[in-house]
C-alpha cells in the first residue's frame, strides 16, 4: 500500500516536472506582452514570441499562443519586438579589399582581413544590427568578395559566417562599383565607358572559362587550370553569388542594369542616389535597390541629388528596396533612423520595417533564415523601448540565434550605444575617408 503510494507520488511528480524539464532542455524562452512587429505583414499588439534552441518556435497574439508550462517567461509589456536589423552594406570589422595594383579583384576576399573582435561590430549590435553584408572598400571596379556575417561574439570570422550555399562555400557576394567611384589613374579606368569595357572583357573571359568547365564534363584532366578570379566570376554567372553594385547617378544605375542583363547575373543596386529619377526603369528590371540616407546632399558629384524621398518613390514604383548604413559613412547605431527618414517623406511604415529587415535578407539570399519573425526562422530579434521610428526609442536588447548578445542595462554593453572614452579602441581604417583624401 505504502509502496503503491510512493510510486503514485513519483509518477505524479514526474508528470508534473515533464513539461518543465523539456522546456529547460530545449531552452525555451517566452517573450510576452510586447508589440510584436514580424515584418511579414502581421503585427501583434499584445504579442508572444517563443524561441527554443536558437529558432523561433511561434509568434502571435497572446490569446492565441499556448505557453509551454515551465518555460522561462520574460515580461516585455510596453516594449516592441521586431526582427534583428539586416544591413546589406557595411564596413564594420576593419576589413579591407583589393588594392591599387589593379581595378578588378574578384579573387580578393574580405574574409581574410576582418577582425571579429572589432569594437565596431559591438557598436552595430547596440543599434540592433544582427546580420550584415560586410563589403570590401570602394574605389575599384571590383573590390572583392563580401561576407554575410551574424554579429555574434566570436573569436574567428568563421564562427560569424552565414552560408547561403554550404556545398559551394558561398557566404557572400561580389562588390562592384561604377560611376566616378572607380575612376582614377591607370590601372584604374579614366572614363565611364572604359569602366564598362573592362568589366565586360573580364566577364567574357569568365564565360569562356565557364564553357571550358562545362566541356570538361567532370573530367579533371579536361578542366581549365585553377584561376581564382575566374572561379568567382563563374559563381556569379551561375547565379550562386550575388553582385552588389555601388552606383549613384541615374545613368550609372542603368549601366549597371545593362551589364547584369548582358551577362545574366543577379545583382543588387547599392546607394542609388538618383534612383528616384529612374524608378520605373529599376522596377521593370527586377533588380532590388539598397538606399543610403545621408543628412544632406553633396560631398561628391554623384551625391548632389540625394534626397530622403527615394524610399517613397521606389515604393510607389514597386521596386524591391531597402536601406543600408555603409557604416562608417552612416552609423549603425542609427540604422532605424534611415527608415524613419523614408517615412518622413511619405513612405509607408510597413515598408520601413521591411526595408531594414526582410527586404535586405532577400538581397543576401537569406530570406528563408532571417529578416522576419516566423516559425522556424533564426531567433534574431531586438527589443525596443517603443516605436521603432521615434528618435526617443532605444534598442534595449539584441538577440542572435536565441542568445542575448547585447543588453543596454549592462554598462559594458551600454557604452557602445553612447560612445565615450576609449569605447572604440581600434579606430579602423576608413576606406571612404582615404578616398576623400585622394579627391574621389
Amino acid at each position, binding site marked *: 500500500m505504502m509502496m503503491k503510494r510512493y510510486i503514485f507520488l513519483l509518477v505524479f511528480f514526474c508528470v508534473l516536472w515533464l513539461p518543465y524539464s523539456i522546456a529547460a532542455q530545449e531552452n525555451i524562452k517566452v517573450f510576452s506582452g510586447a508589440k510584436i512587429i514580424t515584418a511579414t505583414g502581421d503585427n501583434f499588439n499584445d504579442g508572444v514570441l517563443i524561441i527554443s534552441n536558437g529558432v523561433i518556435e511561434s509568434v502571435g497574439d497572446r490569446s492565441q499562443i499556448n505557453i509551454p508550462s515551465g518555460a522561462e517567461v520574460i515580461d516585455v509589456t510596453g516594449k516592441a519586438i521586431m526582427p534583428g536589423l539586416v544591413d546589406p552594406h557595411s564596413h564594420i570589422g576593419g576589413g579591407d579589399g583589393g588594392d591599387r595594383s589593379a581595378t578588378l579583384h574578384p579573387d580578393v576576399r574580405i574574409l581574410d582581413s576582418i577582425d571579429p573582435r572589432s569594437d565596431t561590430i559591438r557598436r552595430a549590435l547596440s543599434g540592433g544590427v544582427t546580420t550584415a553584408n560586410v563589403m570590401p572598400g570602394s574605389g575599384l571596379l571590383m573590390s572583392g568578395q563580401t561576407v554575410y556575417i551574424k554579429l555574434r561574439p566570436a573569436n574567428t570570422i568563421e564562427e560569424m559566417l552565414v552560408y547561403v550555399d554550404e556545398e559551394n562555400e558561398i557566404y557572400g557576394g561580389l562588390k562592384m562599383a561604377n560611376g566616378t567611384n572607380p575612376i582614377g589613374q591607370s590601372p584604374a579606368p579614366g572614363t565611364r565607358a572604359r569602366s564598362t569595357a573592362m568589366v565586360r572583357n573580364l566577364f567574357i573571359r569568365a564565360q569562356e572559362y565557364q564553357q571550358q568547365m562545362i566541356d570538361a564534363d567532370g573530367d579533371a584532366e579536361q578542366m581549365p587550370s585553377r584561376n581564382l578570379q575566374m572561379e568567382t566570376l563563374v559563381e556569379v554567372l551561375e547565379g550562386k553569388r550575388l553582385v552588389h553594385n555601388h552606383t549613384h547617378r541615374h545613368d550609372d544605375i542603368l549601366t549597371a542594369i545593362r551589364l547584369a542583363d548582358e551577362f545574366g547575373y543577379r545583382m543588387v543596386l547599392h546607394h542609388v542616389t538618383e534612383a528616384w529619377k529612374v524608378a520605373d526603369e529599376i522596377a521593370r528590371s527586377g533588380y532590388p535597390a539598397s538606399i543610403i540616407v545621408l543628412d544632406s*546632399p*553633396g*560631398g*561628391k558629384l554623384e551625391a548632389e541629388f540625394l534626397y530622403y524621398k527615394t524610399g517613397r518613390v521606389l515604393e510607389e514604383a514597386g521596386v524591391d528596396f531597402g536601406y543600408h548604413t555603409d557604416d562608417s559613412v552612416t552609423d549603425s547605431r542609427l540604422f532605424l533612423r534611415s527608415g524613419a*527618414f523614408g517615412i518622413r517623406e511619405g513612405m509607408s511604415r510597413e515598408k520601413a520595417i521591411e526595408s531594414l529587415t526582410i527586404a535586405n535578407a532577400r538581397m543576401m539570399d537569406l530570406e528563408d533564415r532571417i529578416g522576419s519573425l516566423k516559425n522556424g526562422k533564426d531567433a534574431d530579434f531586438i527589443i525596443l523601448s517603443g516605436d521603432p521610428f521615434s*528618435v*526617443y526609442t532605444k534598442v534595449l536588447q539584441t538577440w542572435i540565434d536565441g542568445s542575448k548578445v547585447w543588453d543596454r542595462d549592462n554598462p559594458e554593453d551600454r557604452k557602445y550605444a553612447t*560612445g565615450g572614452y576609449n569605447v572604440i579602441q581600434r*579606430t579602423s581604417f576608413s576606406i571612404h575617408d582615404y578616398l*576623400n583624401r585622394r579627391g574621389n
Partner: protein
Amino acid sequence: MRLIKIFLMIYCSLSMLYDDAKAQIAVYGETVYTMAGDPIENGVVLVNDGLIEQIGTADNIRIPDGYQEYRAPVVTPGLIDSRSVVGLAGILNQEHDQDQLEMSDAFQPELRAIDAFNAREDLVKFILRKGITTVHTGHGPGALVSGQTMIVKTAGNTLEESLIDSTTAISVTLGAGIQGGYSTPGTRAKSVAMFRQHLIDGRVYAENRRSEDPPSRNLQKEVIADLLDGKINALIHVQRAQDIMTAIRLQREFGFHMILEGAAEAYLVMDEIKEAGIPVIIHPTMVRTWGETQNASFETAAMLKEAGIPVIFQSGYEGYVPKTRVALFEAAIAVANGLEPMDALRSLTIDAAYQFGIDDRVGSLEIGKDADLVLYTGDPFEYSTRAQAVIVDGNVVFELDSN
C-alpha cells in the same frame, strides 16, 4: 535730370513693392515656443514689416484685416546653427566650391569670411529649408588660424542682404586637427608656440596702434589686436582633453574671448571648462568616431548642460558626405540621449544668440525682434517632423509642398 527723377520714381515704387512683399502675417501655433518665458498654447505671432509686432494667446490677439494666416502644430524662433562652413564650402566638394580652408599658410587671420560667402549656395538653402535661419559660418577648422567667421541669415541672395555680423571670430585649430599639408606647424607644441608668438606680437601692435604714432597697417596684426582688445572671439577647435586644457591655458595667458568648438572629450574636463567660464559649441552629436573624435559620446551635450556649461549646436565641417549636417538633427540625437528638449531648443535659439551677442535681433519671439519663425508639423526633434514653413525677416521663404 528728368531721367534721374523717373529713375527715382521707379526705384521708390519698386521698393514699396518690396515692402509689400514683407507682408503682414499672422502665425497660429498650437504650441508657440517663444524662448522668452513659457511656451504659449494656442499662440499667435503677428508679423509686420519684417519684425514681430505682437505675440500672445489666440484669445487675446485680434488679427487685423489683410494679415495672411499660417497655422502649424509647433512654432519656434528661427534656429541658429552655431558653427558651419556653408556658403564657403559648397555642395559639390570640388576645388572650385571649397573656400573654407586656404592651404598656402597655416596662419591667416586676415582672411575674411565676407569675401568668400556664396549666399545662393545650395547648402545654405538646404539648411534654411530645415529651419536654420541664422548661421555662424566662415573659415573652417584645419589651420592654426584659417581665417574669420561671420553671422548671416540663410535667406538672402547676396552677402549684404544676409549679413548680421561681419567678423565674429577667428577660427583656430589646436591639436591634430591641423591639416598635414602645411610646412609648419607639424606638432601640437609647435602650433601653440607659433600662436603665442603671434599673440605677443599682436599685443605690441594693439598698444602701438593706440599711440600717437601708430604703425603702418598690417591686416594680420589688426585682427589679432582686435581679438586681444575684445572686439572679436577666438573660436578654438579642439577635441582631445589635453588640447582643451591648452586652449584654456592660452586664454588665461592672453585674456581673449574664447568659444570652444568640437570638444569631443569635454566630459573629461568639465570642472576646468566651467571654471574658465567658456561656452562650448559641441561637435555634431553624430560625428564619426575616429581620429580626434574617437572618444565622442552622444551624451556629451547632456553632461555639459548638467554641469552648468553653456552648450550650443553646430553642423560643423564635413570633408565628404553628407556635405553639411543639420544642427537641428544633431540636437535631436542629443535630446534622445539625455538632454532636456527645452534645453536643446534654447541651445538652438536664444542661448546661441546670447553667446554671439545677437540676442537683440534673433533667438526668441519678442515684440520688435526680427520676424524669423519656423513652423513644424510636430515635435521639432522627432524624425518624422518636417519644417512646413520658414519665415525670415517677415518673408515666407520656404513652404512645404502640399502633397
